[in-house]
């Protein structure tokens, strides 16, 4: 039996707490999904879309991207 199979066997007999995650943490997770979901929704034919507002790029000449045009 592999270690993972042993762990799986042990896990089956164990009860787990269902913790309260908190609205703040859920929001952090949702913000991490926002751009991925937006890109998925808008698809390949979307007009130029903002992504720099989501990214933290280096400023000034180091981060001249404001809008990225999908090709």
């Amino acid at each position, binding site marked *: 039996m592999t270690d993972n199979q042993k762990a799986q066997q042990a896990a089956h007999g164990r009860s787990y707490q269902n913790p309260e995650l908190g609205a703040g943490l859920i929001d952090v997770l949702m913000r991490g999904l926002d751009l991925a979901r937006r890109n998925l929704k808008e698809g390949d034919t979307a007009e130029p879309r903002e992504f720099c507002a989501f990214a933290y790029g280096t400023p000034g000449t180091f981060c*001249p991207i404001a809008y990225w045009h999908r090709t």
Partner: protein
Amino acid sequence: MCPASLERPDLSSIEAKLADSVPFGSAGYISGKIAATYAKLLSFLAEDCIGARILLERLDTVGQAAQDAVFRDSIVRRTIEDGVCKIAKGIETIEQSVLDELLSAAAENAKTAKRSLLNESARCVPFEGDAGYGYIWTDDQPNTLAARRFREEILKRLPGLLIRVPTKAQIDTLLAGARLAEHVAPRLGRSAMSHNFMVVIGEFPTGDQFNSLTMPGLPGVIFLSPNAVLNIADTAEAFFHEALHLKFLDIDYIHPLFVPGFRQESSPRITPVWHNNKPGYGNWPVDRLLTSMHVYLALVVYLGKAGKGDGQGLFDPQVCAGRASQCKIRATWLFETAQNYLELLSPAGKEFVALLGAELTELKVQLPDSPQLSPA
């Protein structure tokens, strides 16, 4: 401002506070809290996900340092987050079989010396030493589930990005850059760069180019363009700069900085005065304002130390002094502007802004009469 003003001893004091204070500085504190946060998220998944149960079982058999290492892994973090969003919010983020397989693989790798999954699943080069600055992605043909998923998660957020395999010269520059950043500002450099897990070299095939960026939703991942790894000094600063954004993101996980419901898309937008009349440079949401303020304050320390002799001769003291002054001006402007948006911040967010404001006050650096507002 004259360069001599940057040699005041309070730079070390500010470096220490930014690097080691609790709750917003210490990498060890933040790392422990990150691990606790993801352990909680795993427990949330456990009822519905056998992979989560297996990983929790495995983590019970290892120490805290090992748990911290498991939860530094960018793909493990992304996978757990996708699982929670799927179960808590009903969003189709990840197939159940993929979730189980990845978390089971993370459990398997928790037994290894490195503890983390992605570096064992893809070609990558580790940063040197024991400081734990993560890896450099060198895989052009990811052939494991974890590696493929990592690439897919990047492209969901940065579609069209061409992920490059760095040359040996680029890798050497990156490794030397990390060493240089640590040499320039040992405490702050280590504290920031330890938030990195994977540096990815990439660029867009057409249109505007970037130097470096960090993306919420890709924890522990820094993107550097080939232009960012041309020389050691610029690479060191880019790595240091983006690592601070990662630190900000990690702080947000453990002490959420914004009020419930805050979103970048619906946030008020701010255009810094140095980006006026530069279409496309401004329109920052409030989270970007905060993380930029944090970075600029840290750069005052970094450039101040680089310019006064800690830079191994790779920095021009006059240039460093001018740029440090500019960063101080910008951090101050961002701090003052942030006062207009405090209602969007949680109590922790207000405390974070107040802490940076106190550090700015402590700098006691006079603003120059003719501030240089060229891009930093």
